[in-house]
């Protein structure tokens, strides 16, 4: 079970990052739990200066951009 956290204040890119992550996880057949973190202070606690960001099992994997589904698969695989 992977824990995916999407850090972002709710703009279009954050939604897209969440979609991409879900899509990649589903096509890999990975079990996952998705959480959206919108509170800025909580985002800062991850040390992230640019949103959107993706945290997988507590490790920051993506900062400030939306990768393609293929790239995302590599990150989750």
């Amino acid at each position, binding site marked *: 079970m992977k824990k995916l956290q999407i850090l972002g204040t709710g703009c279009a890119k954050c939604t897209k990052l969440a979609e991409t992550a879900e899509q990649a996880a589903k096509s890999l057949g990975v079990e996952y739990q*998705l959480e959206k973190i919108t509170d800025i202070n909580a985002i800062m606690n991850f040390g992230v200066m640019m949103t959107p960001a993706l945290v997988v099992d507590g490790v920051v994997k993506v900062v400030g951009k939306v990768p*393609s589904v293929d790239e995302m698969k590599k990150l989750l695989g």
Partner: protein
Amino acid sequence: MSSGTIGSRIEGMKKELKVFGWIAGVFLVAYFLPLANPKINAAILEAFKLLQWYVRNHTLACVVPAMFIAGAITTFLSQAAVLRHLGPKANKVTAYSVASVSGTILAVCSCSVLPMFAGIYKLGAGLGPAAAFLYSGPAINVLAIFLTARVLGFPIGVGRAVGAIAFSMLIGLLMALIFRREEQHRNNVQPQTLPDDAPHRPLWKTSAFLGCMVAFLVFSDWFNPGNVIVQTSDGGRFAAVTLQETKDEVVFQLQQDWKGQASGEKVTVPKREIAQVEEAKTWVMSVYHARWYLAGVMGLAVLLMAWRWLTREEVNAWMSNTWDFSKMIVPLLFGGVFVTGFVGALLPDKVVAGLVGDNSLLSNLVASVIGAFWYFATLTEIPICEALRKLGMHSGPMMTLLLAGPALSLPSMLVLRSIMGLKKTVVFTVLVVIMGTSTGMLFGHFFP
């Protein structure tokens, strides 16, 4: 089964609720709109007129290319490179300078400003540069400046850029000075190393690409100043600027005294009294006539560069960013213009003129306070200012509104409070209001 479904179900509920909210809203407006009231009728018509004017004059040649540029800025310019200069080890002078000018190429979307501010404040260069960035970031992006210059006039566009950069530095320094004793309560978190998405192509290629796009916008949206020489059927002649043309009449702003009217006055002349309207020959007019050729050359250059230099993925990312911006900004822009037309028609000229019609301290203060608290969606501040000017707003308070408006709003103040506490938020707000007021007054004094 993934447990992600619960989260997505709640998301889905929220989405449906939003749709329901819209339907209920339209229902309530349609139900209660007092159509019997002639004032309301006139206001609705005025709202559609303003929207049509905006769509006809500013959309195809201006808003559409602007969206492509906004998309290109987010795709091809590295935000990480800028933030690296604002990291914890950054030299103070560099930090302040970068913070106050980086807004030109960053933050086309105002929603990205607050997280970046929080990052610079807590993980990076500290309160001063963060405050500088927060103030200048939303106000000086390339598109906002260009549209301001184009719609509201060149001095206001330049004044906005220069004012925002100069005063962001001052505000940053003041914030750092006022709170110099307070221990920076930094989180014990190491900033994540930002992705090293160093551009794969030399800087000159990126600059040429973006430059040609901006040049396309400049030419396609070239302004027809409307300078004409009018010959009337009774043999008179005068120089004027065409303001508005209807089926039977033309409204001119005189550029010389004519028939007892002083230069600068507006006159309405029936078309049957006009023998001939001749264009005044200036270089601005020559460019205006050639604007589609010039824009076409730039457009071809952009296409050629995109074809030769960009990968398929980059083009896709560019288009997808452009579409994201359009989805976000265009409805707000059209909605904002429509509402402005409606409210503007209900609001008698005298109310606006009485509040902000001159360059007094009070006028500028009113504009500054309204600007600080009111939420302006990206770029909507420009049509709103144009409508207010038609209702009699002076250039000083307008500059004040442009400076205080995008930097702050009530919703952003609430977020700021959670990032840096009540005291700093109040001080920052007060500084923005004071700075906005004084810069606007200064501007209004020199460019009435």
